[in-house]
């Protein structure tokens, strides 16, 4: 089972410049909540932003990783909040 730390590292390695904050919210290694901030999201719709993160895990989503609840944002939006 991946840990929240594993998930964070994989997102940050796969999406250039991404910063991820990941929580394993059941403690079971299969339900995660992630907030991802990345310049790569600039100019993309929410759907496209989420797809970029889902693509990091491919077939594992819905398999070993039952769910990743996602919030994505650009660095610009993150700095406003």
């Amino acid at each position, binding site marked *: 089972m991946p840990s929240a730390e594993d998930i964070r590292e994989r997102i940050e390695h796969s999406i250039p410049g991404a910063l991820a904050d990941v929580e394993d919210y059941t403690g079971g290694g299969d339900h995660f909540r992630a907030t991802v901030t990345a310049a790569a999201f600039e100019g993309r719709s*929410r*759907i496209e932003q*989420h*797809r970029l993160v*889902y693509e990091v895990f491919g077939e594992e*989503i*819905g398999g070993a990783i039952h*769910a990743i*609840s*996602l*919030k994505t944002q650009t660095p610009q939006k993150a700095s406003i909040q």
Partner: protein
Amino acid sequence: MSPTEPSPVADAIQSDSNPVRDAIAQAIAEHKVILFMKGTPEAPACGFSARTVAVLQALDAPFAAVDILPDPRIRQELSAISDWPTIPQLFVGGELLGGCDIVIEMYESGELAQALL
């Protein structure tokens, strides 16, 4: 053939000449708002599906719902069409609006009500 009109998705499952994928695409085209979910709006089988149904109901938005659980091909073909790996999936006007996270975010910002007009 049954004299009553079955749902397009259920019909395709029983017929090789009418593939599941075509039936899903047709259902998406024919319903302005359609939710693919685990379980039914009355008895959701997953928390993410339940939350998505709850916001649609909070907005009094009429929507069609398809339970993806009875046949694994529905989910497989749906994800192939939408390029989206998780359930639920909400389509509005033939386009994928999002999964649970995006739909909730849009509900909270007021964008969902706009999108459903």
